[in-house]
């Protein structure tokens, strides 16, 4: 019998960080948090979980990417309080802070536009610091496939960022 209270207490902050980092606001992060643990519950019914930390990181990343994809697929812009919530006062330079916010928003959008598996591999590698082997285990793919997916994701992101930079210029 799995003690979910303990698991939430132990791994909740990590899941929250993963979700919030990708989604950037409390409401979406809260939804993703709940969906992650419900998915983990369903997963634990199907097979035995050996590493809850990695599983939850993978599930949180996947759910967050799903939300990102839904968010950027919407046609109508919604009322957005994200920018207000994300206002930070400690940045030494407002211009730099604005540029960073813009860059973060752009990266989130681009991750949402990537194919799901590539986005997942990229996030697990760059945001959760997982090794190729861990990523391969979590996604049930070979290490080589993980490398290929990461390479493709990097190429797509790089190209998109380059285009965005050119448009800004």
């Amino acid at each position, binding site marked *: 019998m799995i003690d979910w209270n303990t698991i939430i207490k132990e791994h909740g902050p990590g899941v929250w960080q993963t979700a919030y980092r990708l989604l950037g606001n409390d409401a979406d992060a*809260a939804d993703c948090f*709940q969906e992650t643990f419900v998915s983990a519950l369903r997963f634990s019914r199907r097979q035995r979980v050996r590493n809850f930390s990695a599983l939850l990181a993978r599930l949180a990343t996947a759910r967050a990417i799903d939300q990102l994809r839904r968010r950027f697929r919407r046609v109508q812009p919604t009322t957005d309080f994200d920018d207000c919530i994300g206002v930070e006062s400690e940045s030494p330079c407002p211009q730099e802070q604005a540029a960073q916010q813009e860059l973060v928003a752009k990266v989130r959008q681009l991750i949402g536009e990537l194919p799901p598996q590539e986005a997942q591999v990229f996030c697990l590698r760059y945001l959760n610091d997982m090794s190729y082997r861990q990523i391969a285990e979590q996604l049930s793919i070979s290490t080589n496939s993980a490398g290929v997916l990461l390479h493709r994701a990097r190429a797509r992101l790089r190209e998109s960022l380059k285009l965005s930079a050119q448009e800004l210029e």
Partner: protein
Amino acid sequence: MVEDKDILERAAEVLKNEEIPPGPPQEVVEATISKLAEASEQPSTIQIGSRIRIRERLKAMNSLNKVAAAAVLLIVAGYAVGRLSAPRPPDIKELRAALEPAIRQDLLNELNQRLQASYVHLRDDLDRQYRQDMTRAAMQILAASNTVTNERLAALIESINEAQTQDRQWFAAALERVETNRRRDSTQLGNALATFVVETGDELQRTKRDVARALEDVLLDNPAPDLLRDDSDQE
């Protein structure tokens, strides 16, 4: 290429290092726990551990095929009957007109709830952030004022020391000048006194000689026998 790589690396780094508020909030944790409890009560769709034999599976597939064929026939028949008996397709506009107010109301309610929740959260966040900023600013101002005060005090002490040093130097110079003047005056006075003494001695001798000469002259003009005699006797 290097620049592109830098953009990607920088973007990932910025995203990774973005400041994340501590969480999850307690209400999210509680909602998750209740959702997990709710999901735990639902029966699992996949039965693990019950092994199905091939023969039973084939039997099940046979009966399943029959059921599927019957279902297909029923569906086809139903579709044909329905197609023939259906008066006309439903009016999409009417359906939309009937459903739209309810959907709008639901959306409005949901949006209001989310906005209210966001507002409360935003207000709390801003309040917390404002307090943190104020505390930080106060600490910075205090530290800066301490630094400035210390600098000013150091400058004041230095200027006082400098003024005292200048005063001492000036006082020592004045004393030295007074001493020099005193020595010069003493020397001059000594010299003047010596000159005076010498001149006074000379003058006395001269006066003596003049007096003696005058007395001699007087005696020669009016001799005084007794006095002259006595003097001659004595000689």
